[in-house]
């Protein structure tokens, strides 16, 4: 397959995933903003930091209006939903022959909905828009799942999606890790409870959490769930498993493993060592940062190994 095609598929999947993550974070921000007594301004601020939009922070308090402008519509902010959709479609358009008709239609329709949307309209329809973005991302993934040929292109697509998803979980943990520090465990007061659950909500994992860990929220378990759990699809460990599966396929098709395979192995080992509550002993923040570095390295090695 053409190297450029691999690159476009990889990035297309990342942008779709990123648009969806941003949508989820906006929901989290809204939820926090209406809680009594919560310091919601900080919430919006951390949302901006998680999406790498800190450069767009306004001077004064962050309002929902700012959020709509920066995270939904700003064409220059690579984290905004609008620009993610535009970029996903541009990537898709240059590899149209490698997409199924349904995948392309999903991309094209997503883009059309945001075309010419103005701020007032967007604020008015915010919840509907957010749901819509999530739905479109699901349709896109579903179309890929059931229609796309299982060639290397599919592997690059899945790897791109998994890297982006893991990165989002990691950035959320990096910004919010202080909430999960053991000291705050003692109080268990209202605000902390909401903080923890907000992290789970942002990743659509609150119900899943209960199924795995029971009814009680503890920082250690939440961190375990998001980092090293291997059955929750937004956990870092799950994403690493996915990446390794698809890298394995690529290695078979391309006559052997490359540098990126070693890095994926390192990530796997790092998360494995954090299992069974070892995460906090090793330092949550340190592990998160180490993972972020390894993922960045993995992405650039992937490009190098497959000539893009």
């Amino acid at each position, binding site marked *: 397959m*053409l190297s450029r095609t691999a690159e476009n598929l990889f990035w297309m999947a990342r942008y779709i995933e990123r648009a969806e993550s941003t949508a989820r974070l906006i929901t989290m921000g809204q939820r926090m903003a209406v809680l009594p007594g919560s310091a919601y301004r900080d919430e919006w601020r951390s949302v901006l930091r998680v999406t790498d939009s800190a450069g767009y922070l306004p001077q004064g308090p962050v309002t929902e209006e700012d959020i709509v402008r920066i995270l939904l519509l700003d064409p220059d902010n690579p984290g905004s939903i609008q620009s993610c959709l535009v970029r996903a479609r541009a990537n898709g358009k240059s590899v149209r022959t490698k997409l199924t008709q349904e995948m392309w239609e999903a991309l*094209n329709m997503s883009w059309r909905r945001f075309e010419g949307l103005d701020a007032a309209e967007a604020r008015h329809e915010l919840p509907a828009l957010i749901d819509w973005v999530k739905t479109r991302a699901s349709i896109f993934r579903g179309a890929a799942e059931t229609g796309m040929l299982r060639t290397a292109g599919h592997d690059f697509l899945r790897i791109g999606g998994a890297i982006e998803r893991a990165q989002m979980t990691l950035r959320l943990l990096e910004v919010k890790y202080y909430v999960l520090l053991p000291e705050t465990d003692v109080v268990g007061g209202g605000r902390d409870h909401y903080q923890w659950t907000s992290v789970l909500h942002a990743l659509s994992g609150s119900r899943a959490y209960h199924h795995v860990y029971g009814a009680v929220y503890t920082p250690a378990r939440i961190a375990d769930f998001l980092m090293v759990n291997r059955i929750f699809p937004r956990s870092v460990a799950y994403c690493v498993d996915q990446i390794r599966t698809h890298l394995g396929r690529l290695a078979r098709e391309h006559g052997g493993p490359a540098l990126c395979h070693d890095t994926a192995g390192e990530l796997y080992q790092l998360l494995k060592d954090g299992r069974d509550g070892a995460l906090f002993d090793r330092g949550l923040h340190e592990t998160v940062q180490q993972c972020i570095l390894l993922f960045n390295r993995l992405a650039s090695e992937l490009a190098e190994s497959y000539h893009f």
Partner: protein
Amino acid sequence: MAFFEMHDQDGAIRDCYAEVGRWIEGTGIAGLRRRMEEAEAIFRRIGITFAVYGEGGDPERLIPFDLLPRIFSRLEWQRLELGIRQRAQALNAFLYDVYHRGEIMRAGLIPQDLVYRNEAFRPEMMGFDPPGRVYSHIVGIDIVRTGPESFEVLEDNCRTPSGVSYMLENREIMTRMFPELFGRGLVTPVDNYPALLLQSLKEVAPPACSGDPVVVLLTPGSLNSAYYEHSFLADLMGIELVEPLDLFVDDGRVWMKTTAGPRQVDVIYRRIDDDYLDPLAFRPDSRLGVPGLFHAYRSGGVTLCSAPGAGIADDKAIYVYVPEMIRFYLGEEPILANIPTWQCGTPEGLDYVLTHLGELVAKEVHGSGGYGMLIGPQADQAALAAYAARILANPGGFIAQPTLALSTVPTLGETEVVRRHADFRPYCLVGKQMRLVAGGLTRVALTEGSLVVNSSQGGGVKDTWVLRN
């Protein structure tokens, strides 16, 4: 009064339109309009769009689609097909001659300067034999109709004629929406076009190719106005759609960069202009292009389709001589006539055009897409005077033709079936043999009375049927 293709001179429905006439009657105008909106929604969702150069606005504009098909009888098509093949053969023979001994110029039938001083002439191609001696592998011939028996050629397209994706998509959407119209096999299918195209391209593999030729489609990229067509054709042929940066030349062969390393390429169906193919051979300032590509082509390492320099055959100044080419190379009389054309570059021509400009259609020799043309009868005095001044400043750059009574075809109006002018572009494939699917692209001027069918000027498209009997 222009010939309305649905009726005979007594106003009765012509045989070939009988079936569609009943269908229009049965469905009703309101019903048809509803279906047309559905069709448009499908087109938009699929993303078949067309960008118009230099017009600004929405780069992803849709070409309007008209639901009512344009229909040719079997007999009409047989004659058209013979004429198209004849013309495509003569144009390729002319190209071979131009780049070899130039017999037709030596015979005094075509002025030397018109060819060898033409911008579309590529001296780099002199003496080179392209595989199969084919220069133009896809010849698109624009044909107009002026009466029941009269078909005339408006212009030839020997470089990379576009629009064939609309032929295929229009049929696809009609079949999807109105299966009952196609169920009885009245209409000759066109969907084998991609297979025939690929076969033709493989037949012109270069001498260096061993085994099954690797064919790619070279596009300038996703911002090009015809990009949709490029990806569509690559998809249907199952070949890679490459951009210039995906290719490189090494050791006289062309390679594409893949995730598994370089892979050899044998035939390039290029949808990039000559100028931008290779900065070493053509425009050195081009940021597009594959350095060394032309050298690899000349040394037999790769085939370019169409050949660089093929444009000399579809130049509007050369057009006048195509009937002569047919007689000279094939020893036959032209089956499809040319439209009488005055060349402003000759004193008699210039004189005639300037005194009759109000009755003529004047065009730039190197223009295309309906840009820079003047329709005399529809222009006011000021426009005529301004155009006359342009002609005088550079007479050789203009030609003029009579304003034709182009035939009209049934088109869906707001409340009734209306008559709109149309033209027709079939696509003749040339490999080791010539191939033609029974159909082509019908373009229709959607504004009442308008004679300009170009999509860049508000034209639309229709499905074109060739009946089986």
